[in-house]
């Protein structure tokens, strides 16, 4: 076969040694990220200059150095409050996304269920999460439960919408092929639909990985004496601006870490090229 060998040979790298290739790739990556790094450092420097140059009081805006000091001197306070938020965000992420995926599977196989529940899901999504939070605290008390539910609620909707679309994103021809093979709905779900929904699911999970942290923090604002959310409230009322800024940065760091982890998992799971239709 003349066509058979062409693709395979083309994929082999040129005569260049492998380590030189790696060094070049590293350099290219640095060059890509350099503008963002330089800009960030410059902005931090400007912030420091403005705060010290104009003598801005610490309780209005702390300087980057003062915020950094909080991480060193009050690190234990930050960490003690970090873990509950991490736990709530992760539990909420798992709960909200699991329910969303299961509902999506049900909707795809039962049009009546979709017609009955989809509008309600849309309605629930339109209620501001800030308004739901007190209701949940009244219902579920002061522990982890309301925070987890709020984090779950905020994850739920994007995943539901994306997953329903993903499960339906199977080409009509593929369904015809499965019919010719007399495949059952269950086989179509496991062999075809779930796999082809993965790009959609991961798009939703990436959104959820950051919003679940927001959900947990919002939950902690209302009736809680632990967690990053409660620390934000406490620091604000006591004019401890450096602590407030440090808490916000830690919260953002958590969301970035969650997003990066999800992206890494996506890259490992999705080895094929989504979007291309064969």
């Amino acid at each position: 076969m003349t066509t058979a060998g062409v693709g395979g040979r083309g994929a082999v790298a040129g005569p260049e040694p492998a380590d030189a290739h790696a060094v070049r790739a590293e350099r290219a990556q640095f060059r890509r990220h350099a503008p963002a790094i330089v800009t960030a450092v410059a902005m931090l420097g400007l912030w420091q200059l403005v705060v010290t140059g104009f003598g801005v009081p610490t309780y209005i805006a702390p300087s980057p150095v003062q915020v950094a000091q909080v991480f060193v001197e009050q690190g234990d306070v930050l960490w003690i409050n970090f873990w509950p938020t991490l736990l709530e965000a992760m539990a909420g992420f798992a709960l909200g996304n699991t329910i969303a995926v299961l509902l999506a599977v049900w909707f795809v196989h039962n049009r009546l269920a979709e017609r009955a529940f989809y509008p309600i899901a849309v309605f629930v999504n339109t209620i501001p999460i800030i308004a739901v939070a007190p209701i949940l605290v009244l219902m579920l008390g002061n522990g982890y439960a309301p925070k987890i539910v709020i984090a779950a609620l905020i994850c739920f909707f994007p995943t539901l919408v994306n997953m329903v679309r993903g499960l339906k994103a199977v080409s009509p021809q593929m369904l015809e092929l499965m019919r010719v093979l007399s495949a059952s709905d269950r086989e179509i779900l496991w062999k075809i639909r779930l796999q082809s929904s993965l790009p959609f699911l991961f798009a939703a999970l990436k959104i959820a990985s950051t919003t679940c942290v927001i959900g947990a923090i919002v939950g902690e604002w209302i009736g809680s004496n632990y967690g990053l959310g409660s620390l934000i409230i406490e620091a604000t009322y006591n004019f401890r601006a450096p602590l407030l800024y440090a808490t916000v940065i830690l919260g953002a760091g958590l969301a970035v870490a969650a997003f990066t982890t999800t992206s890494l998992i996506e890259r490992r799971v999705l080895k094929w090229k989504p979007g291309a239709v064969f």
Partner: protein
Amino acid sequence: MTPAPAVAAAPGAADIVAASAASGGTAISVADLMVRFEGAAGGVTALDRVGFDVPEGGLVTMLGPSGCGKSTLLRAVADLVPIGGGKIRVFGRTPEQARLARDFAFVFQDATLLPWRSALDNVRLPLEVGRRDGDLDQYAEPEELLALVGLRGREDALPHELSGGMRQRVAIARALVCRPRVLLMDEPFGALDELTRDKLNEELLRIWRETGTTIMFVTHSVPEAAFLGEKCLVLSAQPGRVREYVDIGFPSPRALGMRDTLEFVQVTAHLRGLIEEAQ
């Protein structure tokens, strides 16, 4: 029925041809077939009183102006379209019974591969789903089939790493894995460039000779229909009716060079004339 693993096994194929020719039965019989599509603005009759037979081991191509229902006809045989009247039998069975017994396999215009599965795992798909009444041992070895379609060594390639022609080869291997008695092909090479298409036409004839499978092949290319078919069913449009069931008497095995002969041009001219009248 065992597909020979060798790629160029034309000499050994002679006895398979003899065997299928000797059996001489009817693989597919269609009589008085009617297919209607009900739409919001009234129904459309896609096929009207269509009747013909496909001999066992035969290769019948189907031609016609676009919208003549040749794809619909193939889909009706494959139990993908409900029939409004008449009768279809695949080796004496209704389309549904034939589908459940895996008597036929279908090849679409797009390869319809699962992009996350390797070529080999795509060929294996029919063995993993559906009712498996028969013994799995009766089925062909996926590795051997990939070799049969000329993809030895590309078993682990993902679909996006293969060319369009190679993907269609995988689709053909997948169709053959359950050793179907009938192969239904709906413009399988329609999306390929001409050179790839010529190559696959020749290979399809080789596979047909080696496996003895009955083939129904829908195309919109007149030379393709004449080159591949022992017979060519020409349909007229709106509603789809049989215009003529043409015997194409070229000897087997056929080579691509045959298309430059006067006889071949006469046949294609005749087919083209029928299609133009049918429009």
